[in-house]
Structure formats: structure tokens, C-alpha cells
């Protein structure tokens, strides 16, 4: 039996130094909904578990002076759902996070874990990308910021440097007339892994789209930012032609696999369908703001 240690530091500096010192033998524990399953399966045998939930910055929700939000990477979906204003500003991000697993899983699972687990099908990731969220990362060489779409490197892998921890997500201020949404295709009504996931964030002025971002999940080795889809929407009044052009851009961005959840052809087709449906919900919400 190999020795294993559990550490629950109260400061980020302590967490980073222990995590870095363990040189790859350590795992970060946030909600544990992936890590404990991996440990049980024997896929992961950490020598050190660093529980980051006692670090205030990693579990708090703060409103930035500019009018955005900064959410701790280890916060649970259930906690985020109880915040009085977050879900009003970012309903799409919240619904994406709240789609991860059951009520029980929601009590633990975090956006930081969902991102760092590196699954192409992680539900919160397309919505975070659509939102233009930026992660703050701390490591042995200090702090840096990365757009969310720069973090995933492939299934189960990230571009974080050794010893780096995702600390928080910063979401930008919301101009009037903005709305976001996340939809995923699953063959059940609840508790499943996305066959395709689509996040859309829009800002409309007088019915014309002035800003748009589109994130697409489960159709490539990493969750994608689809800039061509956003370009097709910006300047449009969401006419059928613009929506079809954006849908086509989503289909063109797909590099999916065939697996038990969906074929390549099916995933590509659904990516376009979901873009249209998600954009319609985002636009409706934008109209209400």
C-alpha cells in the first residue's frame, strides 16, 4: 500500500506549494465527484490529496467593481444556484452548471472541477466559454489569467502548468440587452452525459446582435469556441439566414467521435440544431434584460 496524505490548507500559497512539491503525485480535491470515482476505479492513486474548499477565495462568489462576477473554482452548483443575483445575470452558465449530475452531485460538483477534469462533454464549459469567462490560475510562478477555452488540451488533459491550480472564474459585466443559454442533447430527460452541448451568449440593441459568443461541447477532443458562428450572428437580427449560417459554422467546427452516445453524423447535425435553439433562448432572455 502506498502512503497517502490528506491536506486541507487555508491559504492558496500553502495549497500551491504542497501541490507543486508533490510533483504530479498530488490531486486537487474540490467536489470529488470525479476524483473519488477515479480513485475507486484505481485510475488515479494520489500520494497527496489537497482539499481546497477551506480556501476562502476558492469558495466565494464576489461581484467585481466593474459589475461582473468572480466565482471560486471550488464552489458547488447548489451554492451558486442559491445566489440572489448570479442566475439573473448568467442564467445560461447557471443552468449548465446545474445540469451536472443529480441533486446529490450538485451539492459537491464545482465549475473548476468540471473544467479541470478535461471532459469534452463537461456541461459548464461551453456556457463558460460563451460567457467569455476567464480563469485565474495560481502556481509556483505566481498568478496568471487564461480564457476558459485555453484550458482544455484534450480528453482528461489541460494546459495548466505543473503545480497550477484554477482559483476562480471571472465573468465580465453584462451590458443591457444581454442573455445567455445552454442546451445539451441527451437521450434521457435527466442525469446523462451530453451528446452535444451548446452555449450561446448574446447582446442585442434594438433587435440587432451587437455581441455574440458560442461554445460547443462533446463534438471534438476539447470544448470549442466557435468564432465563425458568433460572426454569423453579430450584425444580424437573428433572421433564419443568419441562424443557418451560424448553425453551418457549428457543424463545420465539429470533429466528433462515434461512440455509444452518438454517431459522427448525428453529432454534427445536432450541433447545428442546438445552436438555433440555444440562440433563440438567449435572445429571448436578452429581450427581458
Amino acid at each position: 500500500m502506498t502512503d497517502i496524505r490528506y491536506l486541507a490548507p487555508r491559504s492558496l500559497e500553502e495549497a500551491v506549494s504542497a501541490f507543486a512539491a508533490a510533483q504530479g503525485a498530488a490531486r486537487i480535491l474540490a467536489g470529488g465527484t470525479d476524483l473519488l470515482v477515479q480513485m475507486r476505479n484505481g485510475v488515479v492513486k494520489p500520494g497527496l490529496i489537497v482539499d481546497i474548499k477551506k480556501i476562502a477565495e476558492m469558495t466565494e462568489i464576489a461581484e467585481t467593481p466593474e459589475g461582473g462576477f468572480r466565482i471560486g473554482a471550488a464552489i458547488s452548483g447548489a451554492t451558486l444556484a442559491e445566489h440572489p443575483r448570479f442566475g439573473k445575470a448568467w442564467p445560461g452558465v447557471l443552468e449548465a452548471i446545474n445540469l451536472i449530475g443529480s441533486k446529490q452531485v450538485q451539492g459537491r460538483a464545482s465549475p473548476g472541477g468540471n473544467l479541470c477534469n478535461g471532459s469534452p462533454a463537461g456541461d459548464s464549459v461551453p456556457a463558460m466559454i460563451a460567457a467569455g469567462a476567464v480563469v485565474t490560475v495560481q502556481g509556483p510562478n505566481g498568478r496568471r489569467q487564461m480564457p476558459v477555452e485555453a484550458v482544455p488540451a484534450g480528453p482528461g488533459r489541460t494546459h495548466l502548468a505543473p503545480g497550477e491550480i484554477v482559483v476562480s472564474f471571472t465573468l465580465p459585466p453584462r451590458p443591457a440587452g444581454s442573455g445567455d443559454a445552454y442546451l445539451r442533447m441527451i437521450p434521457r430527460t435527466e442525469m446523462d452525459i451530453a451528446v452535444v452541448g451548446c452555449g450561446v451568449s448574446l447582446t442585442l440593441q434594438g433587435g440587432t446582435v451587437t455581441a455574440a459568443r458560442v461554445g460547443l461541447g462533446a463534438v471534438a477532443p476539447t470544448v470549442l469556441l466557435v468564432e465563425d458562428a458568433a460572426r454569423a450572428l453579430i450584425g444580424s437580427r437573428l433572421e433564419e439566414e443568419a441562424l443557418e449560417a451560424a448553425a453551418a459554422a457549428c457543424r463545420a467546427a465539429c470533429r466528433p467521435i462515434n461512440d455509444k452516445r452518438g454517431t459522427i453524423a448525428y453529432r454534427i447535425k445536432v450541433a447545428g440544431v442546438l445552436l438555433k435553439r440555444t440562440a433563440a433562448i438567449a435572445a429571448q432572455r436578452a429581450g427581458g434584460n
Partner: protein
Amino acid sequence: MAKVHVTTTINGEPAEFLCEPDKSMLDVLRNTLGLTGTKEGCGTGDCGACSITVDGRLVCACLMLAAEAEGHEIGTIEGMARGEALHPLQQKFLEMAALQCGICTPGVLIAAKSLLEKNPDPTETEVRFGLAGNLCRCTGYDKIVRAVLETAAEMRETAQ
């Protein structure tokens, strides 16, 4: 392996235990503390048989390290009845036969109690979504959902 000393609260009572750093809360509840009401189904967070509350929040005990209980309040099925007096959900599950083999029942009861605390007047759909993390291979869920709705109605009447 160096054991972790954990001081916590379980069902309102102070509790202390020693555990290996990689042991789950479920393992410690059942095998160290003898609280075997919390069941192990899948061990991977899919079935909800090990549902407990941590500071009032519903979680799977199999997805939590026992070491994480330090300083928190754990609630298990053993804390649901007050002595011999069953919780209204437990009573209604008996009356309406909302169980068969019973292995999922403690987890379903903990999840249903958590649901009703947040939403005392749920729709049938809300109950079904709220309990989607609790698998039952016997009942087909219908009796469970009806019992939860019936209990909710009675608890609302009692509260008035």
C-alpha cells in the same frame, strides 16, 4: 498509513473518529461508526443509496472523503426519526408501501426530506427531477413519488 483524526457532528451529536486519508465518508459511517442505515449501491455517485446531508446539503457519502467531515454537520438516516416517532416521510412510505426491497429507501428518504425543506409544495415533475439521483429497481418510482407528494400535502396542513 498515517490516520486522520476527525472531529465532526453526526445527527446533532459530537463525534470523533480516526480514518485513513482515502476512506470515503460512506466507508467510515458504515464500517467505523456502525451507522449502516446509509447504503452502498454503486459507489460512484450514480444511485443515491448513500445520500446524506453535510451542513444541510444533500450529497453522496461515497463521493466524499471522511476526512472532509472535519468541522461539518453530517445528517444520516439514523437521525431522521425522533426516537420511536417516525418522520412524516417515513410514516407515509410505510402506509403507502413506497418501498419493496428497501435498499434505496434510506437514500430516497434523505433526498425527499431535503427536497421538501427547499420546496414544501413540489409538483410531481419537481419530485421526479428532485429524486432523479436516487435509483430504485423495485417500485417503478410511482409509489415513491405519490408518497412524497402526499407527505408534502400533510406537512403543509400541519404547518398551518
